C-alpha cells in the first residue's frame, strides 16, 4: 500500500495549493513514505463490522434561532485584509485575460 512517488507528492501539493521546490518534493516523498509505513497498521484492525467514528460527541444538526445579532462592522471585517477597495476585499484576478 505504502510507497509514494515524487510525482504523486507534486500532484498533492497542487491540490493543496502549495508551491514546492524540487528539493522539497524529494525530501517530502521520502518522509511521507516512512510516515505511511508507520500509519498503515490501522488497516490491520479496521474490520468491516466496525462502524467509523468521526466525532467524539453524538451531535446532529446543532442549530440556533435565526435572530439578528450584533456582528463585525465592514471596517472590522476588512481590518486584516491584504488589499481592499472601498468596503470590499481586493483579490488577484480569478479569470483569464480574455
Amino acid at each position, binding site marked *: 500500500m505504502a510507497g509514494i512517488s515524487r510525482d504523486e507528492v507534486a500532484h498533492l501539493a497542487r491540490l493543496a495549493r502549495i508551491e514546492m521546490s524540487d528539493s522539497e518534493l524529494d525530501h517530502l516523498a521520502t518522509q511521507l513514505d516512512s510516515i505511511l509505513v508507520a500509519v498503515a497498521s490501522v488497516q490491520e484492525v479496521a474490520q468491516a463490522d*466496525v462502524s467509523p467514528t468521526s466525532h467524539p460527541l453524538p451531535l446532529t444538526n446543532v442549530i440556533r434561532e435565526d435572530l439578528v445579532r450584533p456582528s463585525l462592522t465592514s471596517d472590522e471585517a476588512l481590518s486584516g485584509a491584504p488589499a481592499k477597495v472601498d468596503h470590499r476585499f481586493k483579490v488577484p484576478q480569478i479569470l483569464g485575460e480574455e
Partner: protein
Amino acid sequence: MTNIHSTAAQMSEALSEGSITSVELTEAHLVQIEKVDSKVHAFLHVDRENALAQARDVDAKRKSGEKLSALAGVPLALKDVLAQKGVPTTCGSKMLEGWRPPYDSTVVAKLKQSGVVILGKTNMDEFAMGSSTENSAYGPTHNPWDLTRIPGGSGGGSAAALASFEAPLAIGTDTGGSIRQPAAVTGTVGVKPTYGAVSRYGLVAFSSSLDQAGPCARTVLDTALLHEVIAGYDQMDSTSINAPVPQVVTAAKKLDVKGLKIGVVKELSGEGYQAGVQQRFNEALDELVKAGAEIVEVSCPNFEYALAAYYLIAPSEASSNLARFDSMRYGLRVGDDGKTSAEEVMNLTRHEGFGAEVKRRIILGTYALSSGYYDAYYGSAQKVRTLLIRDYQAAFAKADVLVSPTCPTTAFKLGENVDNPVAMYLNDIATIPVNMAGIGGMSLPCGLAPEDGLPVGFQIMSPAMKDDLMYQVGGTLEAALVSKWGKTLLSEIPALAGK
C-alpha cells in the same frame, strides 16, 4: 509574602485581603519576563500596556467594593492560537504575522469577564503541530530546567512561562497532548478537559474533532480554579456541551481517594518507556495506595493503533481547516503583482507562509482523503477511533480513572528529532488516545527521573463529563508527593527561575 513564586490561589487570597494589588503583581511578572525571557523565549508578544490597564481596572473595582471572581487580578499567559481582539495572534506562523483579530475568542472573553490579567501570547509549534515548539516560525522555546532541551509542544511557551515563574496561570490547547506533554516535561500541571467542555470559538482550528483548550498552572488547585473560569456551554461553538461544568475546584480540594479504583493501563508502559519515568510513576502509584485507592490493571489492546490513527485523522482535518489560509481576506499574501492569478498567489503564499511540518501534514492529510486512499487510510483510522472508545468503555467499567506516565521519556534535546517526524510523533503515544475518545486528561509532576534529573509527568484520565474525578485524584496525589518531598518540585528548578 506573596510573590511570583506563589500559587494563583495564594495570589487570589492576597489580592482579596489587600496585601498586594493586581498592578504590583502584574508588574512583578513583567519584570520576571524581562529578566528571563531572552533565555526561555516563552512569549511571542508581551502585552504590557493592556495587562497593566486590566490590572488597574480590577484594582479599581476591588477598591469600590465590587464583588470579583476568584482569579480577578491574577496574571495569565495565553497560547497564541486563541484570538484576542486587537492583539497579535500568529499561531507561531508567518502566515499570520501581524494579524490582529477583530474579535475575542470565548476563552478570552471569559478570562476578561473574570478579571484575569492577560500578560501576552505564548510561543507554540506552528498551528499547534508538534511536540517541541521547534516548529514555531519565531524560534523555539527553551525548557527552564535545561535550556538545551525542549519545553514540549505544541504549548511549550505556556508551560515554560509557568516553570520560569513568568506567569502563575496559562491557557493551552490539546489536540494530541499539547497541554499535557509540555506540562510533563516542565514539571507543571496541565489539563485537557472533556471534549466540548471549553468553547472552541476563536481557537484557530487544527483538528476540529480533537482540539480542546484547557488550563495550565503549577498546582492542581490552580488549574481547577482556571478550569471553572473558561469552561461552560457556548452557543458560538456547535460542539459545546450543554451541561453544568463539573465541580472541579471542590474535587481538587477533597484530598481523599478512599474507595476509588485506579486503573493502570497495561499498554502504556514497558518498551520505549524510560526507566526513571517508570520508576517515578510506580512510586506515585504507591502514594495513591497509601491514600486508600485500589489499583487495578486494565488492558486497552487497541491503543497500539492510536498513534497511527491520529496521524491520519489530525492531518486530514488539518488539510481541510488550513485551506482557509488562502491570502484573500487576512494574513500573508505573496506575489500579487496585478498580473498573477489568484490561484498562483495562493500557491506562492502557502509556500512561503507555512513551515515544513505544516506542509508535511497538509500533504499527508490531502493524501489520506484522496479518492482511492480514503477507505484504506482515513476510513480505517475512523474505525480505530471506535475501537479506542470501546477500549475506554471496558476499562472505565473496571476503574473510576485510568493512569499512565504522560510521556515515555523526559525532555529530549532541542534539535534531536527535528528531521525525524516518526520519532517525534512517538512522544505523544500515551496522550493521544484521550483526544481520540474525547475524554478528560491531566498531567501533574511525580518527581525527577534519577538518570537525568528532569521532571516526569503522571497522567490521569477520567470519563467524559467527569473531569472532577481527575482533579480529585490529582489533588490527592500532589498533596501526598509534596508532603513526601517536603517541598514542591519546581522549588528545585535551576537559578534561572530567580531562586
